[in-house]
Each structure stands twice: as C-alpha cells, then as structure tokens.
C-alpha cells in the first residue's frame, strides 16, 4: 500500500489532435481532500475522468504522463484491470444527479448492480448492504426509498444515492465532479457536510472538482488551480487563498461578485407593482380526474421602484421565476399587476403588445435564450422592428451596433451567430436585446448562474453601470445571495410560493428575522447546514 492513493505525473490529454490538458502533475495522499479549481474549459473534469479512463478513447490520447492509483499505472491498463480500479478503488460522483441515475430502475437495483458486479453478492445480501449504505449517506426513510425511482426523489436525495453507489465498494478515493453545483444552497451545505463526514469515517481521500471557491476553501486541505489545460498553482488551501502566487489565481480570487448596489432614492416613483398575485397550476390529468392544484405563487405583493433593484431569492421551486413570468404576463395569473398606473392584468395580447417594450427579460441560460438560427443583429433588432417600425434597416443596424458597444461587445461581431460567442458574450447579447428598447424594467432571471465566476463579476458590473446610466429598475431573481447582495436594494425571500421575508436588502442581510432566511444565509455564506432547513 502506497501513501499516495493517486499520483499524476506530466499528464497530457489530446482530443483529435487538440491538446486540452498539458503536463499536469499532482498527487493525493490517503485521507486527504484536494480541490481542483478552474473555470469551464480549464480541463479539470477531463483530468478527473482520465483517472477512471472514462474518456472517449476512440479519439483521445495521452501523449505523455502517467496516472498511478495506489501505485498501479492506469494509462494503458486493460479492461479487466480498469474494472477493478473503477468502483473498487476509485468511486465517482457526478454533477447532474438526474441524468447520472438510470430513470428506469429503482434505487435498490442501481446500488445492487455495483454489489453484484464487484462483490458477487446475492440479492438478500445486496439489499442489506444497500440499506446500510443509504443510512450511511443519511437518506431518510431508507427502507421505504429502496423501491423508489429517481424521479420520485429530490435533487439532494438523488445526490445522496449517487454517493451511496460510489461508496458501495469502500473506495480509497472518491472523485466528486461538481457534486453540489446543481443543488440549492441549503442542500449543498448538507451534501458537503456529508462528504466531509464520510471521508473521516471511511478514511477516504476526496478529489473535489469545482468552480466554487467557497466550497474549496471550506473543504480542501490542498488546492490545485487549473486554467486552459495547465495546472498553474498548487498548495495548501490557506496559502492559496491568503497569498496566491500565480496571476490567474489572483484574478480568480478577485473575481467574486462584489461591491454594493448603487445609491438609490428610496422614494423613487413606482414603475411596477403587483397586488396579491397568485399563479396556480392544475395538476390533475384527464377529463374526470379530481381537481388538484399547485399554488406556485400565492398572494404575493411586490413594488418595483425606478432605478432600483428588487431582489427575489429562494430555492428552486420557491416560485420566484413563476412570479416574474406572471408579472410579465407570460403566464396566466390572478391578482393586480400595474405598470406604473396602468393595470396590465386582463389586457388582451393585442393591447399588451405596445407596452411590451417597457418590461424586458434576461434569462439564466445564455445558450437557450438566443434563437440559434438568427444572427446577433437579427436577434437584437427584432424588438425595434415591432416597436419602432418606421426605422430603416440601416438605422436599426446602427442602433444595434451602438447598443453592442454599450454592453461591451465589438459591433463588428453583429453578423455572427449565437454559437460563435462565449457564454458571457451571449449574456451580453441578451442584455443588449433587452436594453435596445429602452425599457423601464428589466427582469433578470438568474442572469449570472450559468456563467464562470470571473464572467459573473463582469456581468454584475455591467448591470450596475447600465442601471446608473439609464435609471433602470431591475427585478433580480437569483439563488446566489452573493450576487444579489451586490445589486439589490430591496429583497424578497420566497419559499413554496409565499413571501417569507421582505424589506430593505441591507437589513435582511445583516439581521434576518425568520428562521428560514437565517438558514439560507448560513448555507450561502458559510456553507453551514442548519438542521431541517429544507427537509
């Protein structure tokens, strides 16, 4: 048995002749947690997958390097040897718990599979072991859940099942690839606690891959920083965070969204207010089924003032996006919605259309929010065609160019298609599409969540500049409290469709009143799980 459970030397990875990872070397000792940090495309996941030799090897090569798992070379190992390493010595947990579990098999079968293959266990034995594992990962009512299918579990529960599967053979090394990115903050804190606890109890080493510096700081003993396929810095966690040496690490650490919202007049005129808005979805299927309804938004009243940001925070399923959709009249709702003094609830599509330019929206996913077959110019000018039909094509083109400049893009790129832009650039295009109509209000639905942190900070700065310049009102929806803190003047905390807490954002951040808000803050800023925060 070697002291080093994993040792990677000069590893390079090549896809179809493109080198995506260059000369990466690091190691993990037994019982140690190492954080592998980098932005998307930095090669961190690819490096982790190569440990398990899970890359598509039809067109992948390792030009140089070796990977030693417990002293045994993995590169070039035959299928049988790899089977032994995968699952037995190294377990893996993936980011997306919905797609990493087979939707057609119940939990017992999926965990059992690992046990049949690697342990040769019988059905009864496997069942006992599965139950033991599910209890180990803290799945409540494990016995009753054995026969559940993945869709019957919540995201956090699914991630627990994934961890249970990875632990089934008591691996010496657990690789967790963004294990909490898809989860809500309170669940994230619970899963991180669980991983830490399991590591202690089973004397496992943990390779934690993440883009979230907060997570790494809390969990890792040592940190490796990757960018563009190079490992640029590694060292003890504290050292990296307090005195980073490499330029990129410094840049990454400085990129956390920061700053305060711009000063705003609390008595500014109200541009939009909602009065006891409710949105209900009919869950009953079929003609004669009993009526069952889900109240996604329940009697919510909010006020948005000119030049200010109203932040709406809450976990997934809290109804924050549905509320925004209702306010924009993109989904049906009850209750009063007023744009300045005009009631817009109940207006017909035709009557509403001329008012559409006053409220615009920017979505979370910059890949889904731009039509893939229209050029940037066509996307941005679409609104002008509707609301200012008198403009000529050239006039529109000029306006698009200047608005692109305003959001920090090169106007020369206006004939490119969405797939030719990076995520951050796409989000800028989405913002350009919104502001070219000179709206009074922009609804920002998690505009930074899908972006790398350094890009997040840039978008936050851009949004703040635009707000100052155009006196824009924002309705800012996010689960990321750090970003909300940097922008919001007023805050609404939502849970299960109702407002839990509401008030000036400074006040809520410093002295949260309700238990739920406190738990949310603790999970977001300190990554501390508060008991029964969301179970």
């Amino acid at each position, binding site marked *: 048995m070697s002291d080093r459970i994993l040792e990677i030397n000069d590893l390079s990875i090549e896809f179809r002749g493109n080198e995506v990872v260059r000369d990466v070397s690091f190691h993990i000792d037994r019982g140690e947690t190492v954080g592998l940090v980098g932005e998307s495309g930095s090669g961190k996941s690819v490096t982790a997958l190569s440990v398990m030799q899970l890359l598509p090897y039809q067109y992948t090569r390792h030009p140089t390097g070796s990977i030693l798992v417990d002293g045994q070379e993995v590169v070039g190992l035959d299928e049988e040897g790899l089977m032994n390493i995968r699952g037995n010595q190294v377990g893996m947990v993936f980011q997306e718990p919905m797609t990493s579990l087979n939707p057609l098999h119940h939990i017992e079968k999926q965990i059992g599979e690992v046990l049949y293959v690697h342990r040769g266990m019988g059905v009864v034995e496997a069942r006992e072991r599965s139950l033991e594992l599910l209890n180990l990962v803290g799945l409540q009512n494990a016995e009753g859940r054995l026969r559940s299918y993945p869709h019957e579990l919540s995201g956090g529960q699914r991630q627990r099942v994934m961890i249970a599967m990875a632990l089934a053979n008591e691996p010496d090394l657990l690789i967790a690839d963004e294990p909490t990115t898809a989860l809500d903050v309170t669940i994230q804190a619970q899963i991180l606690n669980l991983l830490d606890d399991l590591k202690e109890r089973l004397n496992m080493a943990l390779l934690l891959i993440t883009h979230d510096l907060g997570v790494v700081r809390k969990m890792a003993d040592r940190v490796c920083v990757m960018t563009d396929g190079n490992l640029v810095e590694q060292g003890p966690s504290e050292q990296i965070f307090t005195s980073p040496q490499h330029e990129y690490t410094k840049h990454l650490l400085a990129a956390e969204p920061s700053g305060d919202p711009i000063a705003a007049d609390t008595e500014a005129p109200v541009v939009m207010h909602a009065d006891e808005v409710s949105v209900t979805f009919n869950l009953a299927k079929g003609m004669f089924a009993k009526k069952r309804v889900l109240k996604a938004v329940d009697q919510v009243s909010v006020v948005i003032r000119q030049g200010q940001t109203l932040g709406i925070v809450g976990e997934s399923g809290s109804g924050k996006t549905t509320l925004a959709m209702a306010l924009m009249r993109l989904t049906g709702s009850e209750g009063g919605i007023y744009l300045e003094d005009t009631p817009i609830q109940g207006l017909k599509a035709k009557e509403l259309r001329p008012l559409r330019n006053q409220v615009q929206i920017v979505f979370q996913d910059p890949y889904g*929010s731009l039509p893939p077959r229209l050029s940037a110019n066509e996307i941005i000018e679409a609104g002008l065609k509707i609301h200012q039909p008198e403009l000529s094509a050239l006039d529109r083109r000029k306006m698009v160019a200047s608005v692109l400049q305003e959001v920090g893009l090169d106007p020369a790129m206006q004939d490119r298609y969405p797939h030719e832009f990076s995520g*951050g650039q796409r989000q800028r295009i989405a913002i350009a599409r919104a502001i070219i109509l000179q709206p009074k209000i922009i609804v920002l639905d998690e505009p930074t969540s899908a972006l790398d942190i350094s890009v997040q900070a840039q978008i936050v700065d851009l949004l703040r500049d635009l707000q100052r310049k155009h006196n824009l009102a924002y309705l800012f929806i996010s689960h990321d409290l750090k970003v909300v803190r940097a922008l919001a003047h007023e805050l609404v905390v939502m849970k299960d469709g109702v407002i839990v807490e509401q008030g000036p954002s400074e006040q809520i951040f410093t002295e949260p009143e309700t238990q739920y808000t406190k738990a949310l803050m603790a999970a977001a800023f300190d990554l501390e799980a508060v008991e029964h925060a969301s179970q």
Partner: protein
Amino acid sequence: MASTPAQATDGYVVDTMEMPKWEISPLTKRRWANFKAKKRGYYSLWAISIMMVLSFFAEFIANDKPLVLKYEGEMYFPVLFSYPETEFGGVFETEAVYRSEAVQQFIEDGDGWMVWPLIPFSFDTIDLNTAGAVPEAPSARHWLGTDDVARDVTARIIYGFRLSVLFGLALTFFSAIIGITVGATQGYFGGLVDLIGQRVVEIWAGLPMLFLIIILTSLFEPNPIALLLVLLLFNWMALVAVVRAEFLRTRNFDYVNAAKALGEKDFTIMMKYILPNAMVATLTFLPFLVNGSITTLTSLDFLGFGLPAGYPSLGELLAQGKANIQAPWLGLAGFFTLAIMLTLLVFVGEGVRDAFDPRRSAT
C-alpha cells in the same frame, strides 16, 4: 478567452456604417460541404438534376414537330408556335401535321428544309409506318420499341419522367405546406388544439387511402390537378408528427419567451424563431416524400385509376408491360426508369439527411 473583458472598440464609427452584403450563412456552407463530401448523394443530385432539366425541355428532344423549318425563305419554329397547314400551301386550317408526307412535300416544294428533334416522335405520336406488329421491338427507329398503339416508348418515358417528377414535387410541396401548418399549430398552441388535431390526424390516417382515392377518382373525369387534390387529401399527414414534435419541444425555450416579451406576434414567433429548427427535420424528410408521391401516382396509373388515357404515364407503361408479356422491353423500360429515378432520389435524401445531422458534421 471568457475571462478577458470584451474589447470595446472606441474607434468604431457608427455613422459611416453600411448594410453588409448578403451572404450564405456559415452553417449552410458547412452543410453544403458535408453534402458534397458524400460522393454518392452529390453525384446522385447531379444526375437527377440533369435528368430533370433535360426532361423539362422534352419538347425539344422528342417531338413530332421539327425544331426549325425554312419555307419560302422564311424561318418557322413549329415547337414554339403553331402554324396552320395553309401557311405552307395546304388546305386544312388546322395545325400542320409535319410527319405527314403531304406536308413534307409542301415544304420541299417551297424550297425549304426541316430540322427534326433527336427523337422525331412525341409521347402521343402514333407511328403509322411501323415495320411489324405492335408492340414493336427496339430498333434504330424506335430505340426502346413502341407500345401496343405504336407510340414511341423513349418519348413516352421522357415525358412520363417529367410528369412524374413535377407531380411528385407539387404533391410534396403542398403536402409540406399543409403538414407544417397543421403540425406547427398543434405544437405551438398545444393543449386542446393539439389534442383535437392529433385525434383528427389519427382518424384521417386510419382511412383506407387507396380505396378512397379509387372511389373519388371514379366520381369525376380525372385530370392531373384533380388527382393532385385527391392525393393531397391523404398525403399531408407525413410531416405533421415531425413538425409538431419540434414545436412542442421548442415552444417553452427561453428564446421563445424572450420573443413574446419583445411583443412578437404568435405567427412571427412560429415562422422566425421556431420553424428554422423544424426545417432540418422537414428537409430531411422531403426527398423521401417526393419518392412516395411518385410511387403513389405510378401505382394509381398502373391500376388504371390515375391519369386519363393520353397522358404520358410510367404507371400505364408498366401496365402495358404486364399486358404484353411477349414484349419485355415495355416492362423493363418502365421498371428501369422508375428504379433509377427512385434510387437517385433516395441517395439524395440520404445525403441531405447526413449533411443536416450535427453529429456527423464533426468528422
């Protein structure tokens, strides 16, 4: 890459901007390159295109009128214009029958000459000077022989090919328009519209199509337009499922919501934002639809319920082949024409499908 702040180009002067020249989008270029890379589909497209273009000029290839004739110092173009026999000193005021010896004599008398097309028979020309009994075997005079009423098979195939292709294209075009409209409406609005639409489509598709067409065509004198309409009644469902699925998938995408937030009308959203996505699936389907349409027309003709007598029809040629087993050139000519045409179309369809497949384009 993503971490560098986007460069604001301060030197960019908006005032002097001009409209860019229209260009083919890079995606289209890449697809065309992919299509070209697959030699089989590419050459098939060339072959079928050349055959189509040639057949569109069928009157200049196979006709019972001369291309050019000179009569008493003047030039005449009988293929393009109709001249009465009196023009050449004849007695009838009807159009001159240039194949008749009398008219040929008139022109010779008028110190003239005639240039005949490659095949001096039209699809309905009955050759009165056949060497033997009809159907006549292939010879230098009739390359593929004649059918049982002494009409030239080569000429009939050229005209029949044209009619089949045009009919297939027209049927596909109108089926596609109806299918896309119905599929798009169902998919975009969803809910009750979709539910009812889908049931109607299912019931309609369940009807015994061939028998209904036979009944309908026997009700009135069939002509190509009427036949097209009758076939259209049962042919439009092909694309509904594909387009509907694409619209159902896309209608809740963020960019559709963003378009609604801009105030776009439903129709614009369907046409501009969603339809381009559905077009890949649709275009991939089209060559196969053309194939199906041609086959349907041919089988109706074969059964005798299709185009009325007198039209150059490949199905009728096959039926003659069946009726005249002793004259195998009839059946073989019809068979090879259809086989080659349909095979080429399938190859083109495969090429299009592969060119549009994003997974294959990476190679």
